């Protein structure tokens, strides 16, 4: 494959017809020794290469398994992040206001409606208070009028009493005058009759007037009860509600700000997670690169194998490894800090063990992940 034999043959049969001078026996022995040491070194290199190939394949399997696991977790995280973003968006709508009959009503609009209603109530209370006091004034005026009528009735009664007295005196004088006073007696009787009628009318009017006075007094008392209901606390309720609504608007604003920030952060998290899901796909490229490295190492291994065989054929006697040839390997292994890696290298390079496929061991990645501490 690599043409070592042909090259060796070509070297063995040079175009120059004159045979080279044979090396001295001591020099030939030294050359053979060096060749044997090279073959031993090549064997060691091959074991190192094979061990490295095993490690690379194992590492590649670990990376691929862990990357798949990470990718799955990130995808779940992406779904959760997306759901979280939707929840925050939903919360944002809730923070702005309430839903009435399928229509979103903002807190500021609720406050506006409440303010409008309260203003209307305040206006009505003021109008009611004004009208009640206006009626109190009107009833007071009416009461004063009735009192004046009552005074007039008293005057009327006084006049009636005088008239009645005059009629009685006229009747007495008519009786004294005898037949001459007959006509005067008739007039006196009529006057007395008129006085009696006036008296009866006065009594009736007095009764009616008392009823009116009583009605006014009852009305005044009722109105007083209405007018003295203090609505000032109801008016001040608007003051308190305004404070509450302002606090509610303030809180709604703060909540909207916080939810807005949370929304932005949720979107950033979603974008980051989506980026990580994409970024975690690196294992495909890593595996391909490692396959190329492994393939290259296989080729080097085969080349060494061929060259080692060719060289061994040219030597007389077996090639034995001397302990001194392994010193560089021991020095290299001493630099390893991972215990299990070192154990595998010792088993495969120094003790000639076969590479073990550990890929099954890493098929199920641990949930928490383990890191060997140095």
């Amino acid at each position, binding site marked *: 494959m690599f043409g070592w034999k042909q090259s060796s043959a070509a070297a063995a049969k040079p175009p120059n017809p004159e045979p080279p001078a044979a090396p001295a026996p001591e020099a030939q022995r030294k050359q053979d020794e060096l060749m044997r040491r090279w073959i031993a070194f090549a064997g060691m290199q091959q074991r190192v290469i094979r061990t490295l190939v095993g490690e690379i394949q194992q590492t590649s399997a670990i990376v691929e398994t862990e990357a798949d696991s990470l990718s799955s977790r990130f995808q779940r995280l992406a779904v959760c992040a997306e759901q979280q973003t939707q929840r925050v968006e939903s919360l944002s709508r809730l923070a702005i206001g309430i839903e009435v009959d399928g229509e979103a009503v903002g807190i500021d609009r609720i406050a506006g409606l409440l303010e409008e209603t309260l203003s209307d109530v305040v206006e009505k209370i003021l109008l009611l208070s004004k009208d009640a*006091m*206006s009626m109190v004034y009107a009833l007071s005026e009416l009461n004063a009028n009735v009192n004046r009528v009552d005074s007039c009735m008293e005057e009327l009664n006084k006049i009636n009493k005088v008239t009645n007295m005059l009629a009685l005196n006229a009747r007495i004088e008519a009786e004294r005058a005898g037949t001459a006073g007959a006509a005067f007696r008739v007039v006196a009787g009529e006057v007395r009759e008129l006085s009696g009628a006036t008296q009866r009318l006065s009594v009736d009017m007095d009764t009616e007037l008392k009823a009116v006075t009583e009605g006014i007094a009852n009305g005044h008392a009722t109105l007083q009860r209405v007018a003295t209901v203090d609505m000032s606390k109801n008016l001040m309720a608007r003051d308190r509600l305004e404070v509450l609504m302002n606090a509610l608007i303030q809180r709604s604003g703060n909540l909207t700000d916080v939810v807005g920030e949370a929304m932005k952060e949720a979107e950033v998290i979603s974008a980051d997670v989506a980026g990580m899901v994409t970024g975690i796909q690196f294992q495909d490229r890593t595996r391909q690169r490692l396959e190329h490295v492994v393939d290259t190492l296989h080729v080097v291994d085969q080349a060494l194998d061929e060259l080692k065989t060719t060289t061994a054929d040219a030597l007389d006697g077996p090639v034995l490894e001397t302990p001194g040839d392994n010193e560089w390997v021991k020095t290299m292994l001493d630099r390893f800090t991972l215990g299990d890696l070192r154990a595998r290298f010792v088993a495969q390079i120094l003790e000639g063990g076969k590479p073990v496929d550990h890929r099954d061991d890493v098929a199920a990645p641990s949930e928490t992940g383990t890191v060997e501490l140095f």
Partner: protein
Amino acid sequence: MQIHIDRAGGQIAMSGEFTFTDHIPFKEMVTEIFAAPGRAVVIDLSKLDFIDSAGLGMLLLARDEAKKSHRELILRHPIGQVKRMFTVTRFNTLFKVEE
């Protein structure tokens, strides 16, 4: 409630608590002050501690009387509960309220 009337200056000073029970003296005072000649009538409220809804109603009736007489009714320096009631009822849109 106590009422002090400055007829010459067209000024009224009210103190104490202005409630329904004050309607008779208040009406007499309003009738008297608007019967006197002048332009503006000032009610000083700087010593008035409390006003109820009936008191507010009486002030509105006094405002109507002022309009009938083509006079201006000014409410001056309301304090405490009276000032808050004026704010809640937006009295400053109905009267000239001087702070």
